[in-house]
């Protein structure tokens, strides 16, 4: 009977739960789904991470290659993110060129990398004007159940912490690069940006970590990306119902708590991995 009501009136069905301050999957309005992370599972990539937020699954693989630095910044490397939403993750995506949602997500991740200064592009330079590293970060969604931006940001951060770059020296005589695979070092990760997404309902209620169905019924979304000092790298609100300053303040405090949870989880995983 409940399933029938849900199909016919999804919004009313959802409102009944919201009145009791909870959601259909039993979570409270401010509760996140179970987050699991698996680092270093792809052996052919220089860094990788798999993040699961409830059912939403995103895998990030990072490959480092050589490139000539840009002419206007000869001592900087590149970080090129790409988010892929293939048909296998949800029936709403078709195969072919990236759709609008994938492009917007790629742009969002590029903005987070740029704004948070997660790595200094100068660290990626090998020889100014001649050779630099380019990190291709590929984020692929394996299962789309809402809140893709949070999962992608977390996967990117975890994968970057896992990247090991070999030492490169330029041979003066031959002017060729010599790669020493035996000496590898981790990237210098300066900040840890963590994204927290909210969905707005009926212009008043804010719920954290929406699932696919909740996103579809929402009247607006908001994503806050915060680093450990409480500084914001990104406040992404692409339209939707309006929010007052006070509601925004509540979102900020929730984002701060979420940052602590995620940082703790990631530190535990990295600690359990270090002896290699």
């Amino acid at each position, binding site marked *: 009977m409940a399933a029938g009501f849900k199909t016919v009136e999804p919004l009313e069905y959802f409102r009944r739960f919201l009145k009791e301050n909870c959601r259909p999957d039993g979570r409270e309005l401010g509760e996140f789904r179970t987050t699991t992370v698996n680092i270093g599972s792809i052996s052919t990539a220089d860094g990788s991470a798999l993040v699961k937020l409830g059912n939403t699954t995103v895998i990030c693989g990072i490959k480092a290659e050589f490139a000539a630095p840009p002419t206007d910044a000869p001592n900087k490397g590149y970080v090129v993110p790409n988010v892929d939403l293939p048909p296998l993750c949800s029936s709403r995506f078709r195969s072919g060129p990236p759709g609008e949602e994938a*492009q917007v997500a790629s742009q969002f991740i590029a903005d987070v990398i740029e704004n948070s200064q997660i790595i200094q592009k100068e660290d990626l330079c090998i020889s100014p004007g001649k050779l630099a590293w380019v990190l291709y970060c590929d984020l692929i969604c394996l299962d789309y159940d809402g809140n893709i931006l949070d999962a992608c940001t977390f996967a990117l951060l975890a994968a970057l912490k896992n990247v090991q770059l070999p030492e490169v020296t330029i041979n003066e005589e031959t002017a060729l690069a010599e790669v020493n695979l035996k000496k590898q070092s981790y990237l210098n990760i300066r900040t840890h940006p963590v994204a927290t997404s909210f969905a707005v309902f009926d212009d008043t209620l804010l719920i954290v970590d929406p699932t696919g169905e909740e996103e579809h019924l929402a009247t607006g979304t908001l994503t806050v990306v915060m680093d450990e000092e409480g500084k*914001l790298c990104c406040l992404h*609100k*692409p339209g939707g119902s309006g*929010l007052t300053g006070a509601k925004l303040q509540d979102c900020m405090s929730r984002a701060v708590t979420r940052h602590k949870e995620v940082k703790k989880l990631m530190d535990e995983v990295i600690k359990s991995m270090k002896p290699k």
Partner: protein
Amino acid sequence: VEGAMQTDAKIRTAGGTEPGPQGPGCSLRHFACEQNLLSRPDGSASFLQGVAEKSRERLIRNTCEAVVLGTLHPRTSITIVLQVVSDAGSLLACCLNAACIALVDAGVPMRALFCGVTCALDSDGTLVLDPTAKQEKEARAVLTFALDSVDQKLLMSTTKGLYSDAELQQCLAAAQAASQHVFRFYRESLQRRYSKS
């Protein structure tokens, strides 16, 4: 049937401001078609450029979708075409203002007006509203907000750079104050237009 379809098409294109059988969205669509054909300069010069424009389009579209009463015009497509004449900074805010006035001009029913305001924060924390292109480039953070006219709620926000929570609240308050000026300007210019005719 052929004859009837042809006359129907004639009515639509010559429509002008008269709402056709499908509503005011009709004449807007024809206009949009022409614009699109003419103003497509090197569309695929660089992929990155294209993505930045796509996300800007999405922001404007989502803001409009939140205020336009779509249920009054079922099975209608409302196309908004924005052509940049000159860019001297605060481009996204300018696009939002243009889109709002265009929707009012077309007679599309909306639940509120909206306006765009840009704030730039420089390295010592000074706030600059409506920055020039040069100020935007040198700023530590650039925040663009879309606010509605009823109670200055935040409809859309997009930010670039690093800033603290307190700075965000400061910028939001300044933007809300500035939006009053923009809405007053809307009212004055619309009064001027309708008082003449």
